[in-house]
């Protein structure tokens, strides 16, 4: 993806080759969501940017400007994406 940072409403903090991050990628693709990846370093101590936005240094973490939600941990994120952008939302009749 090569969108400009300011065109994407979801910012996705990730680590290269991290399986938990790839799990989130799959879900973002499933719902065809536009997102901007920000890659951080393997060393936890080098991840202050993630700590600043989410309160902890773990990735994956997302910031969704559509909803104002910031979230970490792949299980939580996947559940959030399902809830917000998945079929359940369509059934709920939201736009």
């Amino acid at each position, binding site marked *: 993806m*090569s969108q400009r940072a*300011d065109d994407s409403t979801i910012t996705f903090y990730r680590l290269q080759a991290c399986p938990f991050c790839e799990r989130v990628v799959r879900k973002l693709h499933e719902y065809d969501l536009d997102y901007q990846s*920000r890659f951080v370093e393997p060393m936890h101590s080098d991840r202050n*940017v993630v700590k600043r936005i989410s309160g902890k240094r773990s990735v994956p973490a997302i910031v969704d400007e559509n909803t104002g939600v910031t979230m970490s941990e792949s299980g939580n994120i996947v559940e959030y994406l399902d809830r917000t952008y998945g079929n359940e939302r369509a059934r709920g009749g939201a736009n």
Partner: protein
Amino acid sequence: MVEFDVVELPETDHLAAGDTAPDFTRPLVNDEYWEDASLSDLTDEGPVLLVFFPMDGAFPATYVWNELRDRAWDDDYDVRIVGLSISDPYAHKRLIEEREMDYRLFSDPQNGVAEEYGIVHDLDGMAGVSEPRPAVFLLDDDRTVEYAWVASEWPDFPDYDEIRAAIESL
């Protein structure tokens, strides 16, 4: 000065003053993370000094960034200083840390930007590796080249006073 002829690089049809710099998107590395960014993202904010430099770890990379960091033109002028080399984002993060600099660096391992700009330098003795020639382009907010310098020798360094004068006259 050395007492022998330094290596001359062949003539090249490179991007020159008055041209429009081709836009590109590559990972842009800061001291905390990297993300895809376009040159035009930066020029949209104002003039950009785009600095092509030899791979991180080669001594010219150290020299150039020490100089640019110390001169800190962006403190006095409306200019964004940004670098580009073929080094990967991890190496760029190290360089930014070691040079203690505030500038961001594009990572272009496949050297496609240098191809677009006409400044490819195939490295002797490193099979399959090419990088940009050392080069500096001062771009206005339309990506028009206001000043261009491209190395004609190897190694070669920009004329920093000349660049400052170009920034001053923007």
